[in-house]
């Protein structure tokens, strides 16, 4: 299915990227390539510089050495960061308003996505009356709306309970199926990475580097329960855990 929001997707190229904060070496030579329309998950232990890497790709930080070649990206932080004084639709529309679109027009363009992505009827609900999963959906739509070719998702479901997280993973898989984008997803959950991504890059503890990559050759769409209990998936999971040394 063709995306209604972007004309083209684009590739990401990272070469020898280094980043330090004072004495702390966060990233030590990260090499990573993400193809057009590819979904790549980055997995690694806490503090390995995953979030720093995303902010570098988003252009929110500059590398101390190396090359970051990436198109304009939409960034979704860990917390939903919804504004309590705006309703759900207004929060999604914020992404367009920040780029200069007028309020009414922004809301009108955001509305169809609510129907498409299971948020119909919640347009006027304030964020504090939404469940954690619903809040993340709104935050994700806010990320999709500017129509940028690259999505950067920083542990989007880390704050959810495990049942809701599973549900949100299927939801995100469907959403990315309907709105294909080049996607870089950071997570500490190996299962989540394998389920959502085409390829998983594993990072070492700090200073972070990509130490192994794993292709996930599973057909799409991937119904979640069948997929994660499938023997091919379990094998991949074992392989990934071994590469991470856990």
């Amino acid at each position: 299915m063709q995306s209604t929001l972007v004309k083209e997707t684009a590739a990401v190229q990272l070469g020898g990227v280094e980043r330090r904060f004072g004495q702390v070496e966060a990233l030590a030579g990260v090499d990573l390539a993400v193809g057009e329309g590819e979904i790549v998950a980055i997995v690694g232990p806490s503090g390995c510089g995953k979030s720093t890497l995303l902010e570098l790709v988003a252009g929110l930080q500059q590398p101390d050495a190396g090359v970051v070649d990436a198109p304009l990206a939409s960034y979704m932080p860990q917390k939903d960061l919804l504004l309590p004084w705006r309703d759900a639709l207004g929060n999604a529309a914020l992404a367009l308003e920040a780029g200069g679109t007028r309020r009414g027009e922004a809301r009108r363009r955001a509305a169809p996505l609510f129907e498409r992505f299971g948020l119909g009827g919640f347009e006027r609900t304030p964020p504090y009356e939404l469940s954690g999963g619903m809040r993340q959906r709104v935050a994700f739509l806010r990320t999709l709306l500017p129509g940028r070719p690259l999505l950067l998702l920083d542990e989007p479901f880390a704050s959810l309970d495990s049942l809701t997280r599973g549900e949100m993973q299927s939801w995100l898989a469907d959403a990315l199926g309907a709105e294909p984008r080049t996607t870089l997803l950071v997570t500490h959950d190996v299962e989540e990475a394998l389920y959502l991504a085409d390829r998983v890059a594993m990072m070492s503890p700090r200073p972070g580097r990509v130490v192994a990559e794993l292709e996930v050759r599973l057909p799409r769409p991937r119904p979640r329960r069948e997929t994660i209990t499938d023997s091919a998936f379990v094998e991949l999971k074992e392989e990934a855990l071994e590469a991470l040394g856990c």
Partner: protein
Amino acid sequence: MLKRVLPAVGLLLIALGAWWWVASWDSVDDLLLASPSETWQAVRDDHELLLDNAWVTLIEVLLGLAIAIAAAFALAVAMHLVRPLRDAAYPLLVASQAVPIFVLAPIFVLAFDYGIGPKLALVALISFFPIAVGLLDGLRSVEADLLKLMQSLGASRAFRLTRVELPAALPAFFSGLRIGASVAVIGAVFGELAGADEGLGRLIFLGNNQLETPRVYAGVVILTVMAVSLFALVSLAERVAVPWRTKT
């Protein structure tokens, strides 16, 4: 609601009872302390006089508060946007609060004449500080991650200020305004004591000189009611303007 009002009413009754009891002592001069019933009598006898003067004071308080809000708003936003200005002006802001208002009052009256001017200046001066500090803190209360998100969305500085920082500052602004509104009455009274033709402060001052003790107490009671009402009004405005405060 009743559950929350009852303790306040109870404590008020206890305070009234204590007042009554102390006023009934023979050793307490009637010129020093009027009893609640004498005060009530004064309210009833002089209600026209009291209300006319209370109206004058209320206008001073409301206009002064409006000036304080406008000034606090302008200064807080300017200080928030320009870091050097913030560093430079903060000590002065604190200093403005440290100047004893009753020393300033006569000077203000000399400078601005007998009219409403010096009263407004004093009300604004006394209530400006908590409002400005509340706004400044509120403007800075936005999470770093949210600012990062706004940056990644390409939001301009003006967009960040008007759509994110100012709404986020509302709860802290109202906290400051509640304090500002309750002390505003003090500013008006000092202004009137230093020189005025009308107002509750002047009435109290004259009552003192003429040994009309019950009338003095009646004036104080009305001032108190005014301050409490202002506080309640601000709280009500906050519930309307910041519905998320109690829910997040």
